[in-house]
């Protein structure tokens, strides 16, 4: 089964991270990503630009409205994601727990519907 691991953290705190700490964290992310590529569990993954760059699109009665910012104001924002292949939820949780961001923010684990044949 495929799972989307969504990495949430507080953007303001992230922006204030000292450069040395940031570099250490990036190295840790590289290491982690390499690890799940080697085991064949990595499908995709990206780091997102901050929510200040986000737009939200809705179509109501055929009319497109675009608004500034993410859907909801929350304490933590989506900062990146991994799409992984895992045997079951426990394996997905195990991988999510190894994401460096899990220690400062939180990881939402969502199963992906298999594509309809």
């Amino acid at each position: 089964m495929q799972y989307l691991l969504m990495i949430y953290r507080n953007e303001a705190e992230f922006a204030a991270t000292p450069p040395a700490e940031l570099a250490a964290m990036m190295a840790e992310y590289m290491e982690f990503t390499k690890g799940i590529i080697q085991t064949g569990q990595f499908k995709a993954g990206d780091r997102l630009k901050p929510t200040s760059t986000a737009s939200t699109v809705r179509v109501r009665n055929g009319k497109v409205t675009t608004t500034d910012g993410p859907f909801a104001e929350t304490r933590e924002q989506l900062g990146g994601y991994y799409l992984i292949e895992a045997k079951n939820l426990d394996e997905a949780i195990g991988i999510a727990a190894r994401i460096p961001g899990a220690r400062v923010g939180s990881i939402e684990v969502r199963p992906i519907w298999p594509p309809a044949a």
Partner: protein
Amino acid sequence: MMPSMRAVDQAVEEVFRREAGRVLATLIRLLGDFDLAEEARQEAFTAAMEQWTAGVPANPRAWLINTGRNKAIDRIRRDVVFRTKIFDRELASAEAEAATAFDETDEAAFGDDRLRLIFTCCHPALSLEAQIALTLREVCGLSTQAVARGFLVGEETMAQRLVRAKKKIRDAGIPYETPEPPLLHERLQGVLAVVYGVFTEGYAATTGTRLVDAGLCREAIRLGYLLDELLPNNAAVLGLLALMLLHDARRAARETLTGDVILLEDQDRTIWDQAKIAEGLALVDRSLCISGQLSAYAVQAAIAALHVRALRKEDTDWPQIVGLYEVLLRLQPSPVIELNHAVAVSMVDGAARALDLVDSLAARGQVSQYHLLHAARGRLLQQLGRLGEAGRAYRAALSYAALEPERRFLKARIASLEGAPAAD
């Protein structure tokens, strides 16, 4: 009805009581689906009623599992939903799963299946209330109606809760597995929290008119014995089982015939269940003897043991109870344990010292709406002769108490205080 038919029904019923749980647990593994497995078990027992007229087969469990599995395969093939093109792949995989072989004589494998079922029902990706409901329904075999009654919700609401939980197991890929050792300890804590949750809901319901629901207590203790059978010599399992037995031994003495609360110190010690006490005491000792695994449940059981060992309330070993609460606070700090510690301190160092502890706990604000905090303050103030303040504390307790017998108890305390001359 022919006598032979009745004998068959009786035989099937007996096998059902003994084997229903194991049959379901193994069918879920073979079929990979809770609902399909429940239907298959139902059909297997129905078939047994018809086919066991000549006698019960040598291995009834294997017969039921094989019959259930074959019925499920038939159902998968028959079911029009599965016949549509989209589900062709799932049909193939469901059939392949259902055809998984099982060893009829491997007792350990059946135990493993029951453990898998418990860990799946108590998976932390499910809400605690869903975990409790699923465990009672699938592991204990209670009807949806009985589970609903235990938690004072409608049958419809409970049925929906169970459907949602089973859907999450399927859709999120919650495994039907017992976790491997590094994870096992952590997940076992979750399982024990569910078992204790069932027990406490039975022992001290949080709402409603009845203080004690013996049925839930019994189910929780049965689950404790089952876990001890499946995970032998585990300090936490033994500790929890001991704790439940030692509490349950006092069940009959905890309320009056009209359902009013009787405090520990006022209970009739002659009606405590001595068999349960003996068993509980032996289990606490076994749990505490397992080195390197001090369980908070065992420490709580040891405290309960000191209470039940005292033949008269004056004989209670309060200094040792205070010490055990201090151990417990290091293992598992919580405001409720702090409050119990303070009450024990009042028996050793007096009410003034205990009131300081309770007030400093209250000042931190986390438990300002916990009725027992205010009730304990009221009692300590009363002992110190500060009756006006005691009355106000009991009133605060009453405003947060939800359980009818506790409310009656608090009202009685307030009434007796107001009848007494004010001292402050």
